[in-house]
C-alpha cells in the first residue's frame, strides 16, 4: 500500500532469524542481521508499489556477509515461480559493499513485493536498499516533475514551511544511503522514513 503509512519490512522465515544489530550498523543505530538456515531462505520482504509490465527498475543494495552466504535480491510480480526476477549477489564481503540492481517487471500482481534473501551458512547484514523506475531523473519521477515544469513556476525550494520547523538539514547531506534525519517534533515523523534528503533535492532536475 502506498500512502502516508509506510510499507513494512517482514521477515522471510521465523522472527528470530532476523535481529536489528547495533554492533555493526551501516547507518543509524542498527542494521538488520539475517541468520541463515541452510537451504531454507532467510531474509526480509516488503510489499511493493505498483509495477508496470515491461518497465525497468534500477537500484542498489548495501550488503555485508560471511563467505558461506548466498544472497539473492528478487522482484516478484505474481504468485507463480516464474513471476519473479532473481538477481544473485556476487562478491559478498565482510565489509559493507554496494551492489547494483536492475529488474524488468513481468506484471503487476496483488502479491508483488521485493525480497532480499540468503541461503546456506553464516549471516549477512542489509545496510540499505533502493529501488526506482529506471527512467528516474537523478531520483525524481520524470512524469510528475514534468508537470511542475509546465507551470513555469521557477525554482522549487526544499524543505519548506513550518512542517519541518525542527528539521536538521545538516543530517541530510552526503551519501543518501547513510543519511539519518533527526527531526525533533512529532509532525516531522514522516521525515524519518523520507528517502528524499535536502542534498538529493539540491541535485535534482527541477530545482
Amino acid at each position: 500500500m502506498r500512502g502516508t503509512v509506510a510499507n513494512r519490512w517482514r521477515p522471510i522465515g521465523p522472527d528470530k532469524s532476523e535481529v536489528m544489530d547495533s554492533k555493526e550498523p551501516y547507518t543509524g543505530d542498527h542494521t538488520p542481521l539475517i541468520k541463515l538456515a541452510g537451504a531454507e531462505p532467510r531474509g526480509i520482504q516488503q510489499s511493493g508499489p505498483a509495477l508496470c509490465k515491461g518497465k525497468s527498475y534500477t537500484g542498489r543494495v548495501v550488503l555485508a556477509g560471511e563467505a558461506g552466504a548466498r544472497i539473492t535480491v528478487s522482484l516478484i510480480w505474481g504468485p507463480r515461480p516464474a513471476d519473479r526476477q532473481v538477481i544473485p549477489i556476487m562478491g559478498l564481503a565482510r565489509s559493507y559493499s554496494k551492489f547494483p540492481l536492475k529488474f524488468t517487471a513481468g506484471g503487476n500482481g496483488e502479491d508483488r513485493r521485493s525480497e532480499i534473501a540468503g541461503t546456506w551458512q553464516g549471516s549477512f547484514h542489509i545496510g540499505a536498499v533502493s529501488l526506482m523506475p529506471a527512467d528516474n531523473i537523478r531520483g525524481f519521477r520524470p512524469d510528475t516533475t514534468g508537470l511542475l515544469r509546465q507551470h513555469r513556476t521557477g525554482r522549487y525550494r526544499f524543505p519548506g514551511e513550518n512542517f519541518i520547523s525542527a528539521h536538521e538539514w545538516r543530517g541530510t547531506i552526503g551519501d543518501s544511503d547513510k543519511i539519518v534525519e533527526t527531526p525533533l517534533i512529532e509532525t516531522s515523523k514522516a521525515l524519518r522514513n523520507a528517502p528524499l534528503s535536502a542534498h538529493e533535492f539540491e541535485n535534482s532536475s527541477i530545482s
Partner: protein
Amino acid sequence: MIRKPSALLLLSVVSALGAQSGNRPAKPIAVIINASKADSPMFLYNYGQFIEHIGDLTNRSLWAEMLDERRFLLSHRLKACGAEPSARNSG
C-alpha cells in the same frame, strides 16, 4: 532565466506622514505605472515555490524511490504479524 513583465513604477509621494497627522491639509499621493517599459529580468532565486513533506507530495509523487524504510532507521524488530514499530525517539 524567467522573464516577468515588470512595470516601471513612478512614485510620487508627498509627505504621506504629514497627510495623516491632521496638522496640515492632506495632499494627494500619485502613482503612475508605465506598462510600456520593462525592467531587467527578475533574479532567478527570487521567483519560485517550495516543496514540503505533506502527505505523499514529495516522497510518493516527486521522488522515485519505491521502497520504504530503506535505511532501517526505526528501532522495531521486524515482526511477521504486523506489530506496529515504536519510533526510536519522539520524532
